[in-house]
């Protein structure tokens, strides 16, 4: 028995790197910032994917089998693909209720929580709007959370993670000042978005959401809804379009309202320019400025 324990211990040392699986690229980027070369990271979704409809490929199961930590966005965003992957991962460490599962939605203020839900209202999330990564002020909080979790699972490297966090926060805070200043010019600007994907960015910087191209969350635009949107909306400057839906509707509405359609990345990798967390917000700001 003792021999076995020693063998196991040796085994675990030989794979010293903490194995982390993240559901979305932005989470992966954050883990890379904190863990650097002491963690290995596997990201399930691609930046160009619709975050609601990620395919539960069996290849992901193989990566989750050995994971020490699974970090998810939460607020029901992953409900369509993560449960079967988790169930088939045969990995007790990352199951709900264990230390190896981290739901980041627990640590930020979730907005737009519905009073009641029904599928007749479309694809509403009972927890509220899950796309909280687009408020840049949420990122430092989550970086700290990830640092704490990495420290919890890998005490030996805690000082290292702490150092990386401090370095990251320093650079992020400097950038935040730039972004806050840049986005402040967009205060009170009226926008329409396809899906309620950018609401955290809008509410942080006081942009005004006039409506969505979708009549209900998850339901594609209808002619009737678009006509009524066009007739009611006035002074709209931007139509915010995600990278994965069709763009014709946004183009049409932009033309009708004399607004500008802007394709905004929602995650790292959604557009080639947004190749890390910093450039994600840089790119969003760049695309919203003339």
């Amino acid at each position, binding site marked *: 028995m003792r021999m076995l324990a020693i063998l196991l211990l040796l085994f675990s040392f030989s794979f010293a790197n903490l194995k982390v699986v993240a559901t979305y690229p932005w989470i992966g980027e954050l883990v890379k910032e904190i863990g650097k070369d002491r963690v290995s990271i596997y990201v399930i979704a691609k930046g160009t994917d619709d975050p609601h409809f990620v395919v539960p490929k069996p290849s992901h199961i193989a990566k989750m089998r050995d994971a020490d930590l699974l970090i998810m966005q939460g607020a029901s965003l992953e409900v369509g693909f993560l449960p079967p992957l988790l169930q088939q991962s045969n990995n007790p460490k990352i*199951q709900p209720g264990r230390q190896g599962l981290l739901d980041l939605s627990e640590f930020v203020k979730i907005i737009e929580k519905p009073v009641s839900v029904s599928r007749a209202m479309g694809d509403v999330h009972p927890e509220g709007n899950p796309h909280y990564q687009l408020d840049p002020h949420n990122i430092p909080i989550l970086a700290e959370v990830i640092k704490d979790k990495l420290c919890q699972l890998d005490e030996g490297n805690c000082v290292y993670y702490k150092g990386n966090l401090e370095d990251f926060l320093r650079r992020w805070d400097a950038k935040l000042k730039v972004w806050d200043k840049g986005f402040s010019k967009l205060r009170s600007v009226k926008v329409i978005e396809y899906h309620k994907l950018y609401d955290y960015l809008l509410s942080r910087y006081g942009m005004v959401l006039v409506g969505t191209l979708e009549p209900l969350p998850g339901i594609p635009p209808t002619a009737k809804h678009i006509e009524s949107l066009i007739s009611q909306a006035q002074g709209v400057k931007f139509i915010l379009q995600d990278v*994965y839906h069709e763009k014709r509707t946004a183009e049409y509405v932009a033309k009708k309202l004399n607004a500008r359609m802007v394709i905004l990345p929602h995650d790292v990798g959604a557009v080639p320019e947004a190749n890390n967390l910093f450039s994600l917000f840089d790119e969003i700001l760049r695309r919203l400025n003339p």
Partner: protein
Amino acid sequence: MKKTLLLLSIFSFAFAQESLEELKRQLEEQRRQIRELEKKIEALEKQKSEAKEEVKEEQKPAPADRTLQLRAKYEERLKAFQVYPFRQTAFLPDLSLIVDTSLVGRNKNDQELKRLEIPGLYHRHGSEEHGILNKNRGFNLNYAELYLYAPVDPYFDLYATIPFSEDGSEVEEAYAVTRGLPFGFQFKVGKFRSSFGRLNAQHPHVWDFANQPLVYKVFLGDDGLKEKGVQLNWLAPTPFYLLFGVEVLQGENEQSFGTEGFKVNTKKDGSGTDITIGDTKKPNLYVGFVKTSFDVGDLSVLTGLSFATGHTRINHLDDEDPHAFAGKTKLYGFDLTAKYFLDSYRYISFQGEYLYRDQEGTRYAYDDAGNLITPSIKKKQGGFYSQVVWRFAQRWRTGFQYNLINKNDVKENGVKINLSNNLPAYYAMLEYNPTEFSRIRLQVGQNRAFFQDGSRKTVNEVILQFNFAIGAHGAHPF
């Protein structure tokens, strides 16, 4: 309370050694006090009820006054007996209900269809009606399936699928899965869909076509391989997906296995002697499988090999044409799925499975004179389905499925029986999915595998299928 106290005090006064006058005066005084107190109480009660009415009136339009709100809440708390303090609704399992209904048009009426058989492979019996989807011409309610899931405790998850039909319900699946075994192992116990093949473990509502493929129907029956038993699987620690699994199952499948022995009389009219064929050993069925998957860019490939072996007892002695079979069966399966993702919503998918059955044993039947005959039977049969499904828009899918049974060797006492080994069926479908929770599917198909009295009967059908799911969010299938 106050009144009792007063009464008590009056009592005690009555026993005091005072003069009568003094006593009377005091009594009078007491009475006066009581009246005053009663008045006060009345006034208070009136005030209270007025306040209450005010609260009620206030609550409806807008509870403006905060003190009134608090007061109302306080009053509610005082009546806390109205709330059940042991409520456990937080532990309610995830629940969903899936309803499947269809409209069927077919060139054969329901009675004609019942009499059709696939020679050497499949025929319907009066008693085996359930599990057949889109059975009748016109409207069908295929199922209303209740699905439950919740963790049992830190060690097990529990799943149950209970389909309701118009005639009743059954427990299709009810099994527990471990959630904490080390080294990549997982253990499953209960009644479940076997992981044999690709499609068998999937629920009908995630199938790409309205019916199961022909090879599944002839080798595993209309219900598929759903058995009581255990499964142990092991996910290998490889960078790609590699899963090994073994199952020990009861093996009651009516199409290829079966456990219950039978008694057969040497004469059709029952005047001869009985021969007893014993039960198989139980459990009866052993399944093994290996599955692997890898990605090449946007292409995902999933492939697997499956094997099942068990004894066979098929008892149709109560039929018009009584017959039975006792022997053993081996099933082999190969499956391949290749899915190419064009973007978040669109994909093209190829899926195919080849199934092969090796069966041998003794057939019990009667000759024209009513005497029992017991020829030895050897069956080597195989076939496949292959399908292409194209999801060309977020809400739209279309697909084509080709079925063929191309091996149908049946030897009776070593002599080959002449049976068709070209049994095809084709289906095409177009699907509209308003959301993930609803589906409308139009399927047209032709089945050329059915025979009656030795001649081929082509079955043409059109199915308009509706599928709805409410409750807990189901997972998107791969």
